[in-house]
């Protein structure tokens, strides 16, 4: 019995990395890009927002730290696109659970952790696409101005920061087993973006709202990614806000994930 078992194991083996592989990642990305709504919301909408709000001729001449206001708005819009993309990527688990695909995957060697890693990587690739498109279009218009190294640094911060929202997407994806999770997400992200000061500077809101906004999940990240451009000192609260929400989202996702894998 034992020798047969080891013979079977030897000849077959289990996949490395719990089944995580590039072919699956490629197909996941292709699948996301095939979804017209996802592409419109995460790639095209931020570009349109930038073209609508960032090209005001006055902004090109108005200074903002080491660059101009147009660059400031470009950063806001690329952050909006990136977090929307990573949230969508994470929230895909909801659709896959509703469709029963997660259950189908349980008949393969793919481990739950590798599955989540696959989703996070897909989300990050989509986020990268969004950041690149918004920045390239911004660059082509010639309006945003900031030193090239700051531009690169900011884009990198936006991209890595959007990882926070991959965790948020996973959390919501495991929490809401609905086919309509993307619409709900779109609305939530819009509200969080307003509250985080991505669309309108927080200084233009009433005082009570400004205090409240400092506790919302996009606030810290938004302030941090603008810091290289503005050149001021980094407020400790921004980091506290970012890390606190990271802990909340990761813990929430892990909690729901454990319940989910225990159930099936």
């Amino acid at each position, binding site marked *: 019995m034992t020798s*047969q078992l080891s013979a*079977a194991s030897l000849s077959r083996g289990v*996949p490395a990395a719990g089944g995580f592989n590039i072919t699956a990642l490629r197909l996941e990305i292709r699948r996301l890009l095939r979804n017209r709504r996802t592409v419109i919301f995460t790639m095209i909408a931020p570009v349109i927002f930038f073209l609508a709000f960032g090209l005001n001729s006055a902004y090109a001449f108005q200074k903002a730290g080491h660059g101009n206001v147009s660059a400031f708005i470009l950063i806001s819009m690329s952050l909006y696109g990136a977090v929307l993309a990573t949230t969508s990527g994470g929230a895909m688990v909801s659709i896959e659970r509703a469709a*029963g695909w997660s259950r189908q995957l349980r*008949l393969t060697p793919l481990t739950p952790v590798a599955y989540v890693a696959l989703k996070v990587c897909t989300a990050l690739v989509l986020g990268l696409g969004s950041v690149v498109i918004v920045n390239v279009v911004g660059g082509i218009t010639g309006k945003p101005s900031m030193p090239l190294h700051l531009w690169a640094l900011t884009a990198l911060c936006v991209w890595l920061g959007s990882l926070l929202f991959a965790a948020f997407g996973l959390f919501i994806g495991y929490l809401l087993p609905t086919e309509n999770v993307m619409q709900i997400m779109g609305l939530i992200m819009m509200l969080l973006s307003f509250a985080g000061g991505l669309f309108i500077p927080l200084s233009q809101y009433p005082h009570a709202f400004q205090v409240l906004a400092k506790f919302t999940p996009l606030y810290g990240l938004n302030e941090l990614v603008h810091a290289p451009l503005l050149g001021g000192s980094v407020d400790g609260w921004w980091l506290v806000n970012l890390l606190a929400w990271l802990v909340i989202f990761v813990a929430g996702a892990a909690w729901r994930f454990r319940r989910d894998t225990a159930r099936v």
Partner: protein
Amino acid sequence: MTASSASSASSASSTFSAPAATSLAVGLRGIHKRFGHVHAVKGVDISIQSGEIVAFLGPNGAGKTSTIDIILGLSRPNAGEVAVYGMPPRRAVAYGLVSAVMQTGGLLKDLTVGETVEYTGSLFARSRPAAEVLRRAGIDGIADRKVGKCSGGEQQRLRFAMALLSDPELLILDEPTTGMDVEGRRNFWASIREDAERGRTVLFATHYLEEADAYADRIILIRLGEIVADGTPAQIKALAAGRTVRATLPGAREDELSAIPGADSAEIRGDTVLVHCKDSDAVARYLLTATPARDLEITTRGIEDAFLALTGDGADASAQTTGAAR
């Protein structure tokens, strides 16, 4: 036996489809599964040897899917032991030793048939080429079609193709032809049968006796979470078929009637006796010559009727036949 199979397995270890063979494919011992107040599986013991084609036959809600989920590691039993090729189910799945075509397994509508197979295949350490499994499942012509545009039968063939990717030793099918028309059903089974001829162990759940009879070497009959019969299709049909001799015989005793040569079981309803038997001539002859029985009537039980009697919820119907089944 064990030594020879072990050496053949190790000598073949360099090839992909090394037989984990001649060992026990599935071993279930004392399996119980409860869902809240529902006791879905009540102490099931099943041993399936490599190479067997086994039908798991029973009506809806008998506990077939619950048992299959346990064999696949999709759910854990409340009590009992499970081994698939001597390993815990999840490990057997990870090694690609076992795969399944599930009734409810979902597919992604926005992938094509080919992409779905490619994706699933990429998750295994080693897998058969996508083109090969598509051909064997009979869907190589629709590889570029979106899954959402496939018919129910095509989707089921796709699940079958996915199940073939790891070239599993054991293939489990849970009511694979549900929702297919007669034609699709026949074609699907032809594919399964062709595949099983290559020596794969197959366990399939069904609630059609004819399907079990046509495609299995062995039928395990399950009812209300318990195994009520286990044997070859011929044995099961013999249990299920047979005739009933009915007569008026006041003062008869059940044990005496059951002891009549050729009788399987007997039942007494007032002055009327019902003797279930395979050899109705012998029973009739005995009743007419050795007892004062009169008003004799011989009826044939249809296979489907008898199957219903074996597996149905009707307590009186099952009581008389489960005795025979054991």
